[in-house]
């Protein structure tokens, strides 16, 4: 039985130090509380003849000092925890993007090259990996203890999470948000492999088109191309170079065209209308499934890469 959890991601090291710090603080406090309690209880038991001397007169000084003491320690812990959290919240721009779709009760993973896997995730070492996750039904939660990361996977929107694995091996993947009958079967494996092996794995499992290529087909099939590629009668914004760039909206504000924005624009186009365009696009909610959405988003993502070079 081992009582420590191996760490397989460099992004999790900071969390481990924080946990260690918390253990140190709690051991100190517990030693103080239990120590004083046992000491007093034995020393001042009612039949102990010990001289109690004068009672402590003013308690105010004590009160203020331990209130301020705890406040300072707590505030330090808050800052420490928050700094790491904020970093874990923002993936680096060059992260490898992998799409995850959760459903009762399985994980479907799709790599950018179109490789798909079920209840498993293959990632290369020393590469920042960003998971873009959504659910088809209820709330799930993608939890890899060895990476010290976890994130709820919500239906109807994208959640992202990132890590940088640095230790080859196979690790647990859990769903940690209760999601119905077979919740405890919604588990899988995260396989961390050296970049070369990962590349080999991608080729051996590379089943045909990349996500973006598949998305290109869907782009035509769902009729998006009719307006967004120009030439049609309806004027619609061009999508080339859109991904990652700021978009001015008709209400005067600006948003960054991230995965969530693109997804929302397909599902609820009237909510964030691009400035100087008519709100004519129909909603594709309940028309396009999550699997296809992922491909469309990947395709639009690839359009940005083309223009940026």
């Amino acid at each position, binding site marked *: 039985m081992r009582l420590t959890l191996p760490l397989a991601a460099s992004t999790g090291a900071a969390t481990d130090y924080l946990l260690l710090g918390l253990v140190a603080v709690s051991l100190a406090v517990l030693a103080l509380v239990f120590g004083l309690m046992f000491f007093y209880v034995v020393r001042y038991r009612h039949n102990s003849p010990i001289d109690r001397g004068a009672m402590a007169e003013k308690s105010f000084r004590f009160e203020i000092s331990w209130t301020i003491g705890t406040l300072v320690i707590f505030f330090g812990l808050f800052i420490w925890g928050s700094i790491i959290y904020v970093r874990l919240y923002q993936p680096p721009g060059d992260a490898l993007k992998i799409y995850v779709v959760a459903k009762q009760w399985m994980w479907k993973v799709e790599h950018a090259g179109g490789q798909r896997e079920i209840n498993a995730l293959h990632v290369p070492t020393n590469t920042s990996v960003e998971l873009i996750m959504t659910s088809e039904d209820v709330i799930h939660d993608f939890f890899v203890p060895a990476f010290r990361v976890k994130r709820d996977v919500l239906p109807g929107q994208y959640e992202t999470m990132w890590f940088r694995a640095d230790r080859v091996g196979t690790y647990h993947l859990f769903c940690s948000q209760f999601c119905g009958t077979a919740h405890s079967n919604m588990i899988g494996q995260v396989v961390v492999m050296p970049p070369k092996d990962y590349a080999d794995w991608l080729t051996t499992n590379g089943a045909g088109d990349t996500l973006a290529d598949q998305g290109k087909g869907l782009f035509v099939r769902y009729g998006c191309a009719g307006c967004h590629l120009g030439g049609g009668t309806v004027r619609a914004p061009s999508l080339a170079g859109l991904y990652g760039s700021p978009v001015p909206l008709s209400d005067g504000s600006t948003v*960054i065209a991230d995965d969530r924005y693109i997804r929302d624009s397909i599902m609820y186009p009237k909510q964030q209308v691009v400035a100087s365009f008519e709100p004519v696009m129909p909603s594709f909610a309940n028309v396009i499934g999550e699997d296809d959405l992922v491909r469309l988003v990947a395709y639009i993502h690839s359009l940005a890469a083309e223009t940026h070079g």
Partner: protein
Amino acid sequence: MRRRHRFNLLIWLALLIVAVLEFGFSFAPIPAGARPILMLPAVLMVALVALGYMRLLTAPEIARGFAIAGIFWLTILLGLAMTDPLTRSVYAVIG
């Protein structure tokens, strides 16, 4: 007693006037984003009813305490609950 009746009548008239103004303003060309300001006359009317018909000022001291507590916790509920949607998209992940 007569004073009390006159007071009640005045509150009633004031409420009616605010209600009519509120109704009238709702036809003014207010931009869609600003239309929630139409809730403001309601706040005034609530104050009128609470102070007039519910006699909050002459109620027992603790009753005023309870009224303030209710409003305070309502503010907490509305305020803290809205911090999430109001800030959620701003920190959306940049790809």
